[in-house]
């Protein structure tokens, strides 16, 4: 019996540090929850946000140290790409937690489990963004997914919440099957699940049928997670049914992390056969943004509209992947970052307009809100403008980056389709503003001041959206560096 020398395979263990910190925070939260047993204790969110901050700090530290080697026998990378997403995901989760505090006070949810699951899902996301091995990727994806399945159904008093959880779960498991099958074929083609080995095989053998098969099936899996048409169908139902804070978390965290992994697989492992997938992704991108925007037009529920809008945005982001140049990748990264804040903000406002007995998700419920609650109103204006891609907001900077990368790489047609889509999107984003400012309404609302944490979330999102919109140079540079480290 030979002893296994584990140490040799834990080199550069620090690349796992942010994820480990978040996981540990999750366990700590559960422990505290069991000990404190006070439903209104603010300790849990504070602890969770602190843990995320520490994890983000660790990531920032690693950024400064980079380049650092891979950890755990090359299954985990500590490149700036992963670290960028780590910070982004931590920020998204922290805002989600902050956003949820007031919500949890008003709804009968198990707080300890809720925060723990958010943190555990974040752990999965962080590893997902950093995974350099399909097995790790698969497991990280499952950690994230399973946690979010549960979060979706956590509002058990609400039948729609649990129905959404079931749909999400069934379709998620179904998609997992495809993803797994694809991984099997990658394994068959390259003899390994390491992305680096696959890249080598691609460089050596080109596009072998196994590789192509794997690519097609993996696309189904990722297509599900990032909600690309025609794998998007679950999104509106699940987004609508889930508690709003969870929806926000799904829209930004799950999507960003899955996109990070998706882009890494496609570019780092399969970059050598880009010709074999860029055309396909082109089709998917066009399909996704068109379907998302088109169907969003006729939605009467703001929450559901935002769900479709998130589909459309996945389509835009995919442009960066189609382009696949350094600028395109950087644009994708930047866009996902921007998208995180504006979408979180929009969901935040949605949450702020709801009450326990009356979710306030219908478009008609928003009538006249703009003038009665100037802060919420103006915030929503900023988010809607940003989502529609109108300057001087971050959304515009993001779209600008994407489209310029597309034009730069010769994808003028794609860029034109993109802008025409954002034209359609303007209709429904501005439709919200129409309701808020141009229709009189009398629905009574909880004063925003009564939900300080939620308000704080919204304000933070507004500030980031505006600041990045006006001065996008810094974040763009970070995104560029992040993407540059992928290769």
């Amino acid at each position, binding site marked *: 019996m030979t002893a296994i020398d584990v140490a040799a395979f834990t080199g550069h263990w620090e690349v796992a540090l942010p994820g480990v910190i978040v996981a540990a925070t999750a366990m700590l939260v559960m422990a505290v929850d069991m000990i404190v047993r006070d439903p209104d204790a603010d300790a849990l969110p504070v602890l969770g946000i602190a843990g995320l901050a520490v994890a983000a700090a660790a990531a920032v530290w690693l950024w400064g140290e980079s380049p650092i080697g891979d950890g755990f026998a090359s299954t985990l990378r500590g490149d700036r790409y992963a670290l960028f997403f780590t910070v982004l995901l931590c920020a998204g989760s922290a805002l989600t937690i902050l956003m949820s505090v007031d919500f949890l006070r008003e709804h009968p949810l198990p707080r300890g489990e809720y925060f723990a699951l958010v943190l555990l899902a974040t752990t999965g996301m962080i590893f997902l963004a950093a995974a350099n091995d399909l097995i790790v990727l698969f497991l990280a994806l499952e950690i994230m997914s399973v946690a979010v399945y549960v979060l979706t159904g956590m509002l058990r008093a609400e039948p729609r919440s649990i129905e959404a959880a079931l749909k999400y779960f069934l379709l998620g498991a179904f998609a997992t099957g495809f993803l797994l099958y694809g991984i099997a074929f990658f394994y068959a083609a390259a003899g390994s699940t390491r992305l680096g080995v696959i890249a080598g095989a691609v460089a050596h053998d080109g596009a072998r049928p196994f590789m192509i098969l794997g690519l097609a099936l993996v696309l189904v899996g990722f297509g599900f997670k990032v909600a690309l048409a025609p794998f998007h169908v679950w999104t509106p139902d699940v987004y609508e049914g889930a508690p709003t804070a969870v929806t926000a978390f799904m829209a930004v965290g799950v999507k960003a992390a899955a996109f990070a992994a998706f882009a890494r697989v496609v570019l780092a492992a399969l970059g050598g056969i880009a010709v074999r997938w860029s055309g396909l992704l082109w089709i998917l991108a066009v399909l996704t943004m068109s379907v998302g925007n088109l169907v969003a037009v006729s939605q009467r529920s703001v929450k559901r509209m935002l769900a479709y809008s998130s589909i459309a945005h996945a389509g835009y982001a995919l442009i960066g992947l189609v382009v696949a140049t350094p600028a395109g990748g950087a644009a994708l990264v930047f866009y996902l970052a921007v998208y995180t804040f504006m979408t979180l903000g929009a969901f935040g406002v949605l949450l702020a307009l709801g009450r326990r007995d009356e979710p306030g998700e219908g478009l008609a419920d928003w009538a006249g809100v703009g003038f009665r609650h100037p802060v919420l109103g103006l915030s929503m204006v900023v988010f809607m403008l940003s989502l529609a891609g*109108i300057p*001087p907001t971050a959304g515009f900077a993001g779209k*600008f980056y994407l489209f*310029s990368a597309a*034009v730069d790489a010769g994808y003028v047609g794609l*860029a*034109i389709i993109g802008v025409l889509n954002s034209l359609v999107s303007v209709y429904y984003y501005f439709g919200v503003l129409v309701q808020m400012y141009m229709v009189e309404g009398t629905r009574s609302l909880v004063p925003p001041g009564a939900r300080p944490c939620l308000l704080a979330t919204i304000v933070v999102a507004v500030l980031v959206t505006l600041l990045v919109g006006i001065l996008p*140079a810094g974040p763009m540079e970070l995104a560029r560096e992040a993407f540059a480290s992928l290769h």
Partner: protein
Amino acid sequence: MQLPLLTLIVFSPLAGAIILAMLPREPTVGLRRAAFVFSLVPLAFAGWMLERFQPGEADFQFVERARWIPQWGIEYRLGVDGVSLFLVLLTALLVPIVVLASWGDITRRVKEFLAFLLVLETGMLGAFLATDLFLFYVFWELMLVPMYFLIGVWGGARRVYAAVKFVLFTLVGSLLMLIAILYCAWRVQAESGSFAFGYDRFLAVPFTAREQLYLFTAFALAFAIKVPLFPLHTWLPDAHVEAPTGGSVILAGVLLKMGTYGFLRFAMPLFPTAAETLAPVVVALAVVGIVYGALVATVQPDLKKLVAYSSVSHLGFVMLGLFVFTETSAAGSVYQMLNHGLSTGALFLLVGMIYERRHTRLIADFGGLWSVIPVYASFFLVAMLASVGLPGLNGFIGEFLILLGAFGPRPWATAVATSGVVLAALYLLWMYQRVVFGPLTHLENAGLRDLSAREIAVLVPVLALCFVMGLYPAPFFRRMEPSINKMLARLRAPAVVAATPSAEAALHP
């Protein structure tokens, strides 16, 4: 380090808007006064700029530059030349007037109205002054949002439809323009190795004829919608009819000029070959627009709609003048932009004033107003005649020069366009006759108040300028011409001249 005059002009309204937003909602009089003062600040700065402006200089003056997004070579760059000088002044002049005019018009949500108006002013001034295409685009879009709210919140019965239509129409063009801008920037990169969005850098790119065709079309679409060029005009009547008076004034006075300004500043000099190739199309559309707008205006029962369609007709003249590429008509076009801003602005103000009193804009609801409100009728007369293009008033100078310059290259188009002069008299005089002359047919009109001192104060500067510009236009042309001619010079050149190394060095010390 000299004073950043242009930055002050552009951002002083925004600062005003922010301060305004912090002021208490009541009393509204205080808000109005504050907004009026805030709107005078950029006017004062602009006046100072006019004072220090060097006539005879074709290049940009008071240039300001700062790095903004270095990855893309995007800079914060402002500059003013003869083309933008008076448009800036027009903008800065109209906003205080609109603030004053809104006194009687806007009674709900006064604070928000004024704040949006000031934000809009920043957008407009910025768009006129930006010399970096990215910056231009940002300001261009920045105008959209406040205008959307001005129409949508304070507008008439179908305001939402009109506001959304306005936004969507505008965006159709501007988004494609964005793509074109990106393509140009990419070409700059291909030529010089680094991205840049500077106007001068774009000018230095030797675009192929085919590229120019596409790029010009994209730019032209954005601007043509704004102008609006037939048949892209249908947003305009709706927007005008539904917008509050101030919105209409700004829309007609400044926003429409964005389109023609864009053609002159960007679409034509950047893509001269395409401009020359497509000139027949544009001229044809312009001429059709002149006649079409006039015909439609003739039978409109609604005063605002009538004036709106008259804008289609008037702007057709401007487009005609731009796309015959003669110095005379280009000068006339730029002048006509200012004229239209003043005379149509005045008409909208007047229509707004009567609407405040009677809550109707239907021509049929009026008649015989002279006997009741002679002062109003007199002001209306002057504004109407300025719009008709009566010699001695401003409109004539512009129209005459446009047609004069256009006649040489395109005599037949000019001949048709000249019929627009006749039709303008037809629809405006007929309208005026039905509203002001004749017996008093509606008893409700018998008790109308004549203009108040405030309303007279609103109208006098505009109409006085109509006279000044009609009687003594030479000083205006002296400042405008060098810049206009510089832009036109590119259009006559048979081939686009690539930037020489020395020119490059001069641009990037």
